[in-house]
């Protein structure tokens, strides 16, 4: 396994100083495909926000091991969260991916715009990138958002339930695509999802939040019938 890009050391996460989950110690390997699993209310979103730096940890440490400064997160939020009032095209949304490199009082250069078009092409979103983002289907929006994340030139691609509101066929194609870019670009992927069959097919590592515990291991380790039975027995019982 590759060396870790993120190490969580006895981390406690929560709100207003109150921990909802504590004692989290694990490492996410560079270039790995890790799935973050858990039912609603188990702390998935809180852990994700803490990793992304959107809220402070209650206790413990997050160590980022990237070369040349803090790692860049290519964050792909849920498409349904965006206000349809914004008259932005798919291209406008994807262009936001370069805003970190283009400082204040400057505007994206032709080269940056060309790079965004490449990212849209890579996610097969170039055909509909000129249309209003709010009028795209769930799967199309996700492709634009992944293109935006790729445009950040990320160290880690973080996808927050990218298949929410997306039909079965589009979900399958989206996950195939994420797997493909993970392999082609040696990209570290952290995927938050509920979908066990898709996780089994695509992910290498799993972080499973369950009843206040954090289970971490490979798909082969956690997806054994015995472990799954134990987990779901705990849920039922």
């Amino acid at each position, binding site marked *: 396994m590759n060396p870790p890009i993120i190490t969580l050391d006895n981390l406690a996460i929560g709100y207003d100083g109150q921990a909802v989950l504590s004692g989290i110690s694990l490492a996410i390997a560079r270039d790995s495909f890790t799935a973050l699993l858990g039912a609603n209310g188990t702390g998935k979103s809180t852990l994700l*926000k803490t990793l992304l730096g959107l809220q402070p940890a209650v206790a413990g440490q997050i160590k980022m091991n990237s070369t040349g400064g803090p790692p860049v997160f290519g964050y792909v939020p849920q498409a349904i969260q965006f206000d349809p009032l914004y*008259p932005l*095209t798919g291209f406008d949304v994807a262009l*936001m991916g370069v805003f*970190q490199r283009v400082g204040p009082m400057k505007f994206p250069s032709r080269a940056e715009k060309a790079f965004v078009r490449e990212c849209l092409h890579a996610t097969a979103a170039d055909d509909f990138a000129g249309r209003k983002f709010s009028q795209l289907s769930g799967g199309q929006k996700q492709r634009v958002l992944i293109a935006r994340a790729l445009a950040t030139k990320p160290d880690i691609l973080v996808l927050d339930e990218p298949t929410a509101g997306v039909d079965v066929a589009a979900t399958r194609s989206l996950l195939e695509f994420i797997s493909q870019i993970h392999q082609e670009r040696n990209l570290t992927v952290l995927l938050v999802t509920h979908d066990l069959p898709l996780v089994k097919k695509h992910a290498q590592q799993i972080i499973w939040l369950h009843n206040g515990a954090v289970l971490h291991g490979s798909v082969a380790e956690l997806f054994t019938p015995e472990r799954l039975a134990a987990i779901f027995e705990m849920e039922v019982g």
Partner: protein
Amino acid sequence: METLKEIISPDFLLRNSVYTSVLVGFACPLVGVFLVLRRLVFMGVALPQISSTGVALALSLPLWLGLKMDAGSEHTEHLLAFAGSSAFTLAAILILAFMERRGRGLPEGRLGAAYVVSAAASILLLSKNRFAEMGWLDLLKGEIITVSNFDLALTGGALAFVLLVLGLFSKELLFVSFDRAMAATLGKNVLFWDALLYLLIGFTVSIAVLSVGPLIAFGFLLVPALTAHIFARNLKVFVLLASVLGGVAAFLGFWIAYAWDLPVGPTDVVLLGLVYALAAAVRGLMQLAAKQR
């Protein structure tokens, strides 16, 4: 047409009022676009009213402190009003934005209360102030008649500053408005950009209120942006269309008001309302036609 020729003539007696009106018409929709996109329309109602309370209070201060304000102190009076308007608007927008971020209570209730209390306070303050008789009540009602060169320069300079800042930082302001989380993960200081946007909104509102009064300021903040939103295919079109609509409506409103001896501000707002209704009807017909195809 004679009236139009008279208005655009450089010797027109009320030319500064035309210029001020058009400047406000062009500038207000630029920040109004953000009020609409961030669903802060009620803030757009409350802020001009709070701003006018600041004007009323600032103009009452010399009276309370026993300072003499004679007829020659017009610039001082205007600067005082500008200071009162800006201080109240900026303080109010920062407090309201902070409470909005905390996510507690009822935002519409807070804005409604701020609106009604500040409207009442403005009337109370001016009813006991002799300066009210010298034109400020007219201003607060939206009469745009006498604008000195100094007032025009102040308005023009302030709005040019707003335009410059909006232009230079439009990318950041849009980014934190559309996707705060992504902006934060990419290291953008979302609190700073939010504060800058709110300050720009507050600054524009205070200038607009001083120039055209609270009712008209709100009209120019909201209606051009709503009208432009109906047809905007992208953000650039949205912003430009809203601004041009505001500027053109301000000019046409002045022309109509001058020709028919009507108050300028209310004429502007009613004209904007008619354009909005027409645009909505055209859009409805277009959608109907598209369905039948």
